[in-house]
């Protein structure tokens, strides 16, 4: 009997969805907008994360070594820096490599190259380029380097750590990225809450229209669960249909603006992002749609069951 009841509830839910054409359509439109907002928030957060990462990647600190620092010392320091948890990568640039890079950078500036030729030795020193996981961590890393160098008083090999020159810019950048992240999160929460409230109210109105029907069902002896079931099924259907539409619309949209986004966000192809994260996006959108539809319907019907 349980299976028969479940079958009947699903059949009734499907029939209601189909026969209440106009009510279903308005619920679908509102839920489509809510899920569209949620999906947009996923893309916004990806764009934000990508852009902030791009900015963060442009920041690094360089440690310049004295000319008498041996490569072995520098490499051993590189190893100890790499062991710090906050460090994301350390690149060693030897003095020879530094010269090659310098020549490459100034290949069109014959005056500078000529001046360099006048010198007998390579004036450029070896350096380590350090990238931290978060901009806020540069201060700690710079402190670590200075502390380590000053502990070896007689054998100081560090000439300069350029963090102190760039401190103001790095600090400002840290503040901007943190603020952007915070604002982004609150805007996302705000939109999410608004879309949930609007969907909930629309479904509540849709069920409000059926309140007399619900009371009749109760009076002919239907149990609360048997009355609620079809409404919840219809709610789930609103979720499934709107989620499918949103995913399809985003497929088209991202395909359309994919190349444009690649140029605009320096390498972030939204279509590629959509395909790579489709599983997660599918679960979020379908999950939100089904949960929104089912919970809204459940709560709305409950109100009219007290007959």
């Amino acid at each position, binding site marked *: *009997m349980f299976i*028969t*009841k479940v079958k*009947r509830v699903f059949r009734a839910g499907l*029939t*209601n969805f189909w*026969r*209440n054409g106009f009510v279903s359509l308005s619920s679908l439109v509102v839920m489509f907008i809510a899920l569209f907002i949620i999906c947009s928030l996923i893309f916004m957060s990806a764009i934000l994360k990508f852009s902030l990462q791009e900015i963060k990647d442009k920041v690094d600190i360089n440690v310049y070594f004295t000319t008498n620092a041996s490569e072995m010392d520098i490499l051993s320091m590189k190893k100890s820096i790499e062991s710090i948890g906050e460090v994301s990568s350390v690149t060693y640039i030897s003095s020879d490599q530094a010269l090659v890079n310098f020549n490459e950078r100034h290949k069109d500036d014959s005056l500078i190259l000529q001046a360099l030729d006048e010198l007998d030795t390579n004036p450029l020193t070896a350096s380590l380029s350090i990238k931290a996981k978060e901009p806020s961590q540069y201060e700690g890393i710079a402190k670590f380097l200075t502390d380590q160098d000053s502990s070896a008083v007689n054998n100081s090999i560090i000439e300069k750590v350029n963090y102190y020159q760039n401190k103001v810019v790095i600090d400002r950048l840290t503040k901007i990225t943190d603020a952007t992240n915070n604002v982004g999160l609150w805007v996302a929460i705000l939109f999410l809450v608004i879309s949930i409230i609007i969907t909930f109210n629309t479904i509540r109105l849709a069920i409000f229209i059926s309140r*007399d*029907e619900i009371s*009749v*069902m*109760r*009076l*002919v*002896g*239907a*149990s*609360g669960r*048997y009355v609620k079931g079809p409404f919840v099924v219809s709610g789930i259907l609103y979720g499934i249909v709107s989620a499918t539409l949103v995913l399809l619309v985003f497929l088209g949209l991202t395909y359309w603006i994919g190349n444009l986004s690649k140029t605009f966000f320096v390498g972030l192809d939204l279509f590629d992002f959509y395909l790579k994260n489709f599983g997660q996006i599918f679960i979020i959108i379908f999950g939100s749609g089904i949960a929104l539809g089912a919970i809204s319907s459940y709560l709305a019907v409950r109100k009219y069951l007290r*007959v």
Partner: protein
Amino acid sequence: MVILKNFCYNNREMIYFDKVSKIYSDDCVALEDITLTIGPKEFVSIVGHSGAGKTTLIKMLLAEESPTKGKVFYESDEVHKLKGKEITNLRRKIGTVFQDFRLLPNKTVFENIAFAMEAAGRTDEEIEADVPHVLELVDISKKIYSFPGELSGGEKQRVAIARAIVNQPDIIIADEPTGNLDPANTFEIIQILKKINDLGTTVVLTTHNRGVIDSLGKRVISMQNGRIVRDDKSGSYVL
């Protein structure tokens, strides 16, 4: 209370109202000190002007409203002490017909009647067999796949009666079933209710249609301002 319950059950009284009052406010007393018994297989008409308390009385029995004072019994159960599932079970024993039909607008005639059977936990086979049969009984077989919006008032009321009797309830409560119908349909609906009563089902009918009451020649309870003013075994419409 135990004594009272035994009284009801032992005397095979189906419905017992024990000094029931429903007071909304000092100015609005819907029922006042109603004591009333209805036995099995009876056909009882409750008459009175609008606002006399007929519908409130019926709502008490269906546990739609609770009394301010007094108790209502259905067989051995005190109606207003029943909880969720027990109320559902009580309502399955009572078939209800309303003045405004109250059919489910998005379901066909077949589905409207099937819904009451599904709610009572009947199998698909029983539904397939019983729905056409009951529609034949109220003479509306031709409209089995029509929606309520496609039916006339008389047809809608027949469907409502079919829905009320399909689970073979112990009692049919018809709350002004002819209020929205023309004389010809009124006559036919009353004939159907009489037929149902002849087959052994208790019928409680509320109406303010004098012609209906006079033609029935059955028990009549007259109400005025929330009180019972007459209770005649074989009465006519006197107010």
